[in-house]
């Protein structure tokens, strides 16, 4: 029922926006728990590829940031670092005009995917510091959602 309703319906503004974005190979569960660093060889290995797909890069980037809620103050710096690296690798293929919209809608999608989890722990965690981290994450959603909606 859910699938048939989706398939038969008109695409949403979010859908329309996402399908226009450049796609690439994405891990789709890219987070610290699925990474291992080997200092002897300076290799970083990613595990758990079963959800890999072909999608906008934000499916990895924003998911990864969502797993770093305790470093919320550093997110913008991390995004900028990633942007610099991607633009270096892509050269002329990197579109700086697309970057901001792609990132802000990507963060909105992240709220849809992970918001309920963060909110749950923001109100129920017995660990006061963790509860505070989750509360800060949820508080940031107001700006994230509003910024993302602007592009839809």
């Amino acid at each position, binding site marked *: 029922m*859910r699938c048939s*309703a*989706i398939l038969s*319906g*008109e*695409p*949403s503004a*979010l*859908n329309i926006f*996402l*399908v226009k974005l*450049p*796609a*690439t*190979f*994405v*891990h*789709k569960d*890219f987070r610290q728990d699925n990474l291992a660093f080997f200092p002897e060889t300076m290799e*970083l290995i*990613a595990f758990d590829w079963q959800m*890999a*797909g*072909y*999608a*906008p*890069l934000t*499916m*990895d*980037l924003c998911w*990864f940031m969502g797993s770093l809620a305790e470093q919320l103050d550093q997110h913008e710096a991390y995004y900028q670092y*990633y942007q610099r*690296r*991607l633009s270096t*690798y*892509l050269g002329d*293929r990197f579109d700086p005009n697309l970057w901001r919209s792609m990132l802000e809608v990507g963060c*909105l*999608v992240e*709220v*849809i*995917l992970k*918001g*309920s*989890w*963060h*909110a*749950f722990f*923001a*109100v*129920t965690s017995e660990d006061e510091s963790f509860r505070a981290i989750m*509360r800060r994450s*949820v*508080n940031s*959603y*107001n700006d994230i*959602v*509003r910024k993302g*909606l602007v592009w839809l």
Partner: protein
Amino acid sequence: MLARMHAIFWEEENLKAVELGLINNLASIIPFSTKPEHYQHAPHILEILQHGWSALYELVEPDVCDALQSLVENPLR
């Protein structure tokens, strides 16, 4: 690592091959189901999701709550 991987496969037409099973970008943004029948073996997950969405709607500001409810109930339509 992440930026490099994304750049290597940027707009790679070969990845659209159906046999690879990678064309799932839109299904990826459907929120986790909150139907009890989907969590018969993991009821704690259902509790997190149901309680989590209620909490989220209370914690964000009203306009954001409205927008999120609309997107979550029907993200692809």
